[in-house]
């Protein structure tokens, strides 16, 4: 009997611990992360980079203007319900001060969008999540920063168009996608682009988890498209590359989204991945000055978060750093407006995220050139950039093969507006007037 009693007691004790809040003079970061489960490997690299940079700021500068960064992590396993539980657990601690919340999951972001407004906790969705939140007038607390699925698809098409000497007319492009919210988001944009640029678009969905794709690739072989745009995630990525090899489809003609373009996707595919291209907004490698410095400062002090140090400088690690850089820059902005040397709360961070202006010069100053494109947000544009680079896997590492490419904003952004308006109508939200925001 008492074998069961003890855990119960411990539950009671642990909930008592829960109420312990972060010190008032520190800046708190709620981190809703995943390091196990089907996508655990991706999360380990991303959140490793994220936490390492926060540590780096503490070690190098003693925090932001003297405000130490503290954080607490909660494991979601990429599961929506667990994500909500984590959010609820961390939000009480994030009342006084908070950094933006990065969930790295489209599903969790969706579940949190309304709650975040009520709790005044800004959600950063860098390259995932609800894309129509670009329209900040309807979504004050959601920030699909850097770029969205739609803008990215458009940028990839622009890249292909350049390769095809400026015209896509009469070309065949297949869109192979993970059959979920993530994979379906860019379809509307691709269809608009197809109309505009007069190319044939065929949509080929892959059922979750996507560890069997021979039928899809035989279909692709039969249709023989000029390019395959690829929206995969997790095991689906390496399976696709292997299957492409199996049917002899050239990998140089496959361009993936940024969730399909990390070492975790190409290494398991071995030789089959060579030549494959993917979008990204940050380069890989430890040669980036900031990454090299993190290695020296954080790992030199033996405070690194990575269990497996070889992940240092991988695409997802660097992306985690880029997310942390962006968060810290937002906190700096908030401090500049609301009082230097003081922790800032969700409302203040929200303002800062909406008024971000990270220039090339600033990126160079912190050594983060090529970890992020320059970003300038506003109430009407929560995305702030819309630029990506295309990179190619040379068999051992990712090599950028293009400069910054911006998607077709004039075509894509109105789509967000329509979708956001529909959402506002469904939810009875009165959009803010962006001309009056400062």
């Amino acid at each position, binding site marked *: *009997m008492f*074998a*069961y009693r003890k*855990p119960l007691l*411990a*539950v009671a004790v*642990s*909930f008592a*611990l*829960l109420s312990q809040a972060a010190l008032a003079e520190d800046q708190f970061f709620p981190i809703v*992360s995943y*390091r*196990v489960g089907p996508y*655990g490997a991706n999360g*380990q690299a991303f*959140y490793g980079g994220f936490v390492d940079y926060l540590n780096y700021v503490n070690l190098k500068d003693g925090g932001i203007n003297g405000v130490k960064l503290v954080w607490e*992590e*909660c*494991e979601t*396993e990429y*599961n*929506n*319900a*667990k994500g*909500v*539980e984590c959010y*609820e*657990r961390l*939000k*009480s601690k994030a009342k006084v001060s908070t950094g933006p919340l990065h969930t790295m999951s*489209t*599903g969790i972001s*969706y*579940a949190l*969008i*309304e*709650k975040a407004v009520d709790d005044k906790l800004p959600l950063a969705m860098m390259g995932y999540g*609800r894309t129509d939140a670009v329209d900040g007038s309807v979504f004050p607390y959601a920030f699909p920063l850097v770029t969205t699925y739609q803008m990215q698809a458009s940028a990839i098409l622009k890249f292909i168009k350049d390769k095809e000497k400026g015209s896509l007319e009469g070309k065949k492009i297949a869109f192979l996608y993970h*059959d*979920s*919210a*993530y994979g*379906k*988001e860019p*379809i*509307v944009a691709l269809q608009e682009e197809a109309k505009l640029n007069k190319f044939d678009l065929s949509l080929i969905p892959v*059922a*979750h988890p996507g560890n069997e794709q021979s039928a899809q690739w035989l279909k692709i072989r039969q249709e023989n498209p000029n390019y395959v745009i690829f929206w995969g995630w997790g095991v689906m990525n390496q399976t696709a590359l292997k299957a492409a090899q199996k049917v002899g489809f050239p990998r140089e003609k496959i361009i993936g989204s940024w969730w399909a373009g990390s070492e975790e996707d190409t290494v398991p595919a071995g030789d089959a991945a060579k030549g494959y291209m993917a979008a990204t907004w940050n380069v890989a490698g430890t040669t980036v000055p900031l990454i090299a410095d993190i290695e020296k400062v954080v790992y030199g002090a033996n405070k690194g*978060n990575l*269990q497996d140090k070889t992940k240092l400088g991988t695409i997802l690690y660097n992306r985690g750093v880029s997310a942390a850089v962006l968060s810290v820059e937002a906190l700096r902005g908030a401090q500049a407006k609301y009082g230097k040397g003081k922790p800032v709360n969700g409302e203040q961070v929200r303002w800062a995220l909406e008024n971000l202006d990270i220039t090339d010069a600033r990126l160079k100053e912190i050594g983060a050139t090529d970890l992020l494109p320059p970003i300038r947000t506003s109430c009407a544009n929560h995305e702030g950039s819309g630029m990506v680079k295309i990179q190619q896997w040379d068999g051992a590492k990712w090599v950028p093969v293009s400069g910054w490419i911006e998607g077709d904003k004039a075509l894509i952004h109105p789509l967000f507006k329509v*979708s956001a308006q529909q*959402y506002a109508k*469904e*939810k*009875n939200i009165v959009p803010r007037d962006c001309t009056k925001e400062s």
Partner: protein
Amino acid sequence: MFYREAGQFKSSYAADQQLFPIRQDRIGVLLLLAIAFLVVPFVAGEYWFSAILIPFLIFSLAALGLNLLTGYAGQLSLGSAAFMAVGAYAAYNFELRVDGLPILFSFALAGLTAAGVGILFGLPSLWIKGFYLAVATLAAQFFIVWCLTKFPWFSNHSSSGVISTQKVTLFGYAFTSPREKYLLVLTIVTVLALAAKNLVRSSTGRAWMAVRDMDVAASVIGIRLMPTKLLAFAVSSFYCGVAGALYAFCYLGSVEPDGFSLDLSFRVLFMIIIGGMGSILGSFLGAAFILLLPIFLDIALPWLAGALGLPFSNATVSHIQILLFGTLIMFFLIVEPHGLARLWQIAKEKLRLWPFPH
């Protein structure tokens, strides 16, 4: 001594047939309900409402639904999450397409829709059983989720397939705060749980148990298998459907078909195994255990690692969590295969005799 039914004589049919025939049980249940309705809303914080109490009640309801089917009628199902999905999407569509439909009607209709779908997927149970049936219910799991993904009508043509639920309003009153939602969920769950308690002691419930124990024998003594099994599927799916609707409307607020994955079905199944098959109380205990254990481990392990100075990384902690979870499930099956509900029974027997065990 504390739980002695000696001296409680029943002198009328009504007294003999009441839901809780023992006085202590009646008092206990009333006390529990009083605490849940009158005390908890004033003492619990927001985290407790939104992250623990509401999901606990919702999962209890889903587990209750599965328990009716698996624990009472003996039909193993691995598709409960799919029926929850049907409930969630049905409630969304009823709210969307019927103007001003009170939310309770939507929930009820969602349950009925799920019941209909449940009957459809219960049909194979007429000619197969055991593991074959379990795998057949997986067909429901995958097919339903696929349908919800593929027909944009279900998600009102949202480009991502995600639905974001409407406000929960009843006769002009909006349930917005976690506390209000908790009370709404609590009321629904209480009513349905008492109904289930009543159902399983009726002739239907006894027919289910006969089918569970041996269906050939049951049919020999005159229980018609087809309606009995299908009714079990219908009632079970109704409960799961309502739970799914509550899950979408009162807990997450926004769901996508993929969220109702096989994993969720397994979680619900674990709940009834750990809680106790064929026990209403067990559904609640199991839900509490499965829900609280990961949260507890999540908090206790890093703390423990820190206290003992173990160099655990976050990833290791998460892996240990999953490992422990699996171990505990095996441990329970070995040590107490009848689940937590059985422990409660043992406790009751002890209480009856204590302090004079002879």
